[in-house]
């Protein structure tokens, strides 16, 4: 059994998760504080990839990144490289599709953050950077971790947009999901089934991790205020 699809899926999911983590937190933090109209508009735009069919996302990405399209052509001229049909092309697809999961979960966490903690930090002389990374992030860590894990899981399972923008080239762009489809299509049912089992195993581990995080983070009923 050639393990390349597993390796490729994992590296694509890992890199997209890192990108999504920072983009998602950045978007969530600023949009949580934005006025209502801006918030509503950006929320729709940023959540759209979650509800659109992945093929539609793939189509839109190809319209932007394809060799003869706006961004694709410019990158080709400037750097002499194409943006589609390489292994890392799939990252565009996974980032677009999995980003809303991170963004929405992190935004929910930021919105329920007690602002008096940040205000207290300021009056104590703590810098805004300290307050963000040492107070806001740790206090919101449950939502942020959950968002990160969900985004990773979604990126790992991405098929539609990935197959359109990175295609299926064995040993180069093949991921678990595209391999399963290809194997089934060519009648290699036994091997397809083995990849299905691999995929189920990984996803089950990820969901188990989410559940354990939630259980551990559940606030224990303590005495005192609140």
């Amino acid at each position, binding site marked *: 059994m050639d393990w390349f699809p597993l390796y490729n899926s994992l590296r694509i999911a890992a890199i997209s998760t890192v990108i999504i983590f920072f983009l998602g937190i950045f978007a969530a933090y600023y949009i949580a504080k934005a006025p209502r109209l801006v918030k509503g508009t950006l929320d729709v735009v940023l959540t759209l990839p979650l509800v659109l069919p992945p093929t539609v996302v793939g189509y839109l990405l190809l319209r932007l990144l394809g060799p003869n399209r706006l961004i694709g052509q410019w990158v080709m001229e400037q750097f002499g490289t194409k943006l589609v049909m390489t292994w890392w092309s799939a990252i565009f697809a996974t980032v677009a599709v999995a980003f809303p999961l991170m963004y929405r979960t992190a935004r929910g966490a930021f919105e329920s953050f*007690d602002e*008096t*903690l940040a*205000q*207290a*930090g*300021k*009056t*104590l*002389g*703590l*810098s805004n950077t300290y307050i963000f990374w040492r*107070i806001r992030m*740790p*206090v919101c*860590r449950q939502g942020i971790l959950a968002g990160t894990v969900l985004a990773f899981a979604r990126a790992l399972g991405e098929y539609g947009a990935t197959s359109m923008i990175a295609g299926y080239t064995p040993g180069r762009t093949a991921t678990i999901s595209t391999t399963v489809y290809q194997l089934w299509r060519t009648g290699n049912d036994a091997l397809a089934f083995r990849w299905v089992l691999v995929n189920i195993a990984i996803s089950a581990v990820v969901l188990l991790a989410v559940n354990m995080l939630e259980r551990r983070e559940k*606030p*224990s009923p*303590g*005495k*005192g*205020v*609140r």
Partner: protein
Amino acid sequence: MALEVDVEKTYGSFHLEASFRSEGEPLALLGPSGCGKSLTLKCIAGIERPDRGRIVLDGQVLFDSAAHIDLPPQRRRVGYLFQQYALFPHMTVAENIAAGCRGLGREERKKRVAELAAMLRLEGLEGLRPRQLSGGQQQRTALARILASEPRAILLDEPFSALDSHLKWQLEPELKDVLDAFAGVTIWVTHDLEEAYRNCPWVCVMEAGRTAPVREMASLPADPRTVGAARLTGCRNCGAAELETETGWLRVPEWGVSLRAAAPWRTGARAVGIREECLRLAAAGEDNAVDCAVVRRVEDVSAWVLLLRPKGSGPETPLLRMKVEKGAALPEGDTLRVVLPPEDILILE
């Protein structure tokens, strides 16, 4: 050390105009909830930005709209005790206190945390998280954290609102001791006159976003001067009034009566007040008497309260309240003639 505040801020339909000065001794900012007390504190701490005005602490300008000065909260050195204490939930007691220490080395910081923990009776609790503490311990941790930041002023926002009343009596003297040892300015926000009276020699009454002049706390209950202050001191009966120039009596239209008052009328006055325990049954031919219908007899813990509607007043006018100690004879009947004794009438602005 002195704090001077003179700020204005509009928040939707709410308008804040706060102006007062405090020198060292604790000043109570006393007013009903929603009158702008907390907003005033937030302006001083730099959490909210006033539209106009000036804030000076210890000779340093913290905010001046005309000179475009607006120091960030980090540089104001103003400690703020939040209603719910705002302890960092993911940090231990020691880490919370250490977070307040500005620019100290590791060893010095450790020493300072130990000192403050000892001073505020937090020894043995250093490794616990805020949610494992009782309300009083949380408050002391928050105070230790504030003291660690070496503030020039401490602002207390309803310090006992998060605690049960029996705890309050236990913790209040401790808080007072800590503040007595503190050399800077103390502003104590509360809606509770008795709490303010016990802890602050000075008081500034706030009502609907406006501050009254600062005065000595001791004189407030006997002479509240404004309707707001009268209500805060427990005076339940207040009615709009005007001076009848020919007689020198005071006309109170909503009670349908003209009153003779022992205290002189002041320019700017617009109402009279009388405490519920000062009302009594009228003797025949007595002045300052009002005919009332008895709307309800309410039994309270130690007294009866009669709710009275003065004859001729509309259904929207607040009822007069008359307190009758238990054991005294409770007036019978559907109507009463009560007297508002001249010496008990408060002249209010």
